């Protein structure tokens, strides 16, 4: 067999990864390196992977780029610093639903607001995986968690709507089932100058699936297959067909506006600073 070309983007001595059997993080991580592979000019030397803390954020440790595994919720501020210091770099952020929308929620909305030129990929498994299954701001209503044994009563965030409202200039969603589509959504986000946000729905069979009796990993992925609706079809779907389980995937929003690093560059010129 010819070795798959994306394998060069993994730190081979760190594989197999430590994620549980059937965890969706492995699928999303491969989708990211395949998207990078498709990007002309993106190399292991000019692409930086930044992650926070969580099972999902462990991904940076397996990826053979310059990588930064930061503090819980703080990946976007670190990534912002990298981009401001060296705008030539391609900066990719990997974060979890807890990392991005709970402890890191403020960093997230302000990163969007400033339109920092980052590609942020949120691995949404609807739970705090690493710490054993506490509810996150993206745990659906009624779903069980260690902190919600009778089902969550906290209304969840739609991180895509949040990103768009806060000012992100590329917003998309896909799932671990729709692998090629996920690669495409990430790739298109990388093409976009500005804050690009991609929500990758992934299964956490251990801390979420089991407690909610959804069944084995393949069942969780079959659920994604059966309930995800492509954006075009979603827009035509009558409201009574948009049942609680159904959700849209695809590109939701795209815009062009000045990025934070170019605005900053303008200010530097006004102030007579030569970078």
């Amino acid at each position, binding site marked *: 067999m010819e070795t798959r070309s994306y394998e060069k983007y993994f730190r081979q001595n760190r594989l197999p990864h430590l994620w549980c059997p*059937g965890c969706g993080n492995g*699928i999303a991580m491969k989708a990211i390196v395949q998207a990078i592979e498709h990007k002309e000019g993106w190399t292991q030397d000019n692409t930086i992977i930044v992650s926070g803390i969580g099972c999902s954020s462990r991904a940076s440790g397996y990826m053979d780029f310059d990588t930064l595994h930061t503090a819980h919720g703080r990946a976007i501020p670190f990534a912002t610093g990298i981009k401001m210091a060296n705008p030539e770099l391609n900066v990719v952020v990997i974060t979890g639903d807890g990392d991005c929308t709970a402890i890191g929620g403020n960093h997230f909305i302000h990163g969007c607001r400033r339109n920092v030129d980052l590609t942020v990929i949120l691995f949404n498994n609807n739970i705090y995986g690493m710490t054993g299954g506490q509810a996150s701001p993206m745990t659906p209503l009624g779903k069980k968690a260690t902190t919600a044994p009778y089902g969550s009563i906290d209304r969840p965030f739609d991180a895509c709507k949040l990103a768009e409202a806060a000012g992100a200039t590329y917003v998309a969603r896909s799932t671990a*089932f729709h*692998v090629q589509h996920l690669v495409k959504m990430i790739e298109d986000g990388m093409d976009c100058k500005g804050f690009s946000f991609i929500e990758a729905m992934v299964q956490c069979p251990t801390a979420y699936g089991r407690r909610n009796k959804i069944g084995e990993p393949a069942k969780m*992925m*079959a659920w994604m297959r059966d309930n995800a609706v492509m954006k075009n079809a979603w827009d035509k779907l009558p409201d009574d067909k948009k049942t609680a389980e159904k959700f849209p995937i695809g590109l939701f929003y795209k815009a062009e506006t000045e990025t934070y690093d170019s605005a900053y560059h303008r200010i530097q010129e006004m102030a007579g600073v030569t970078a």
Partner: protein
Amino acid sequence: MKSEFTLKLERCKGCGICVAFCPKKVLEIDTLGKVVVARPEDCIACGQCELRCPDYAIFVDKLKEAAK
């Protein structure tokens, strides 16, 4: 046979994703919890197993005509 399988069994965690999404029921999990190609002759080399394996443990290549 249409395809050639490469398994990296040290990576396989026996999650069953490849088994579940194979349209031809080619794959099984053995008693040691690893993937096994039980019915290679039924494989249509569609690549669905490789596509969704979260551990990059299974690879399928189409056999070229000449190699048959």
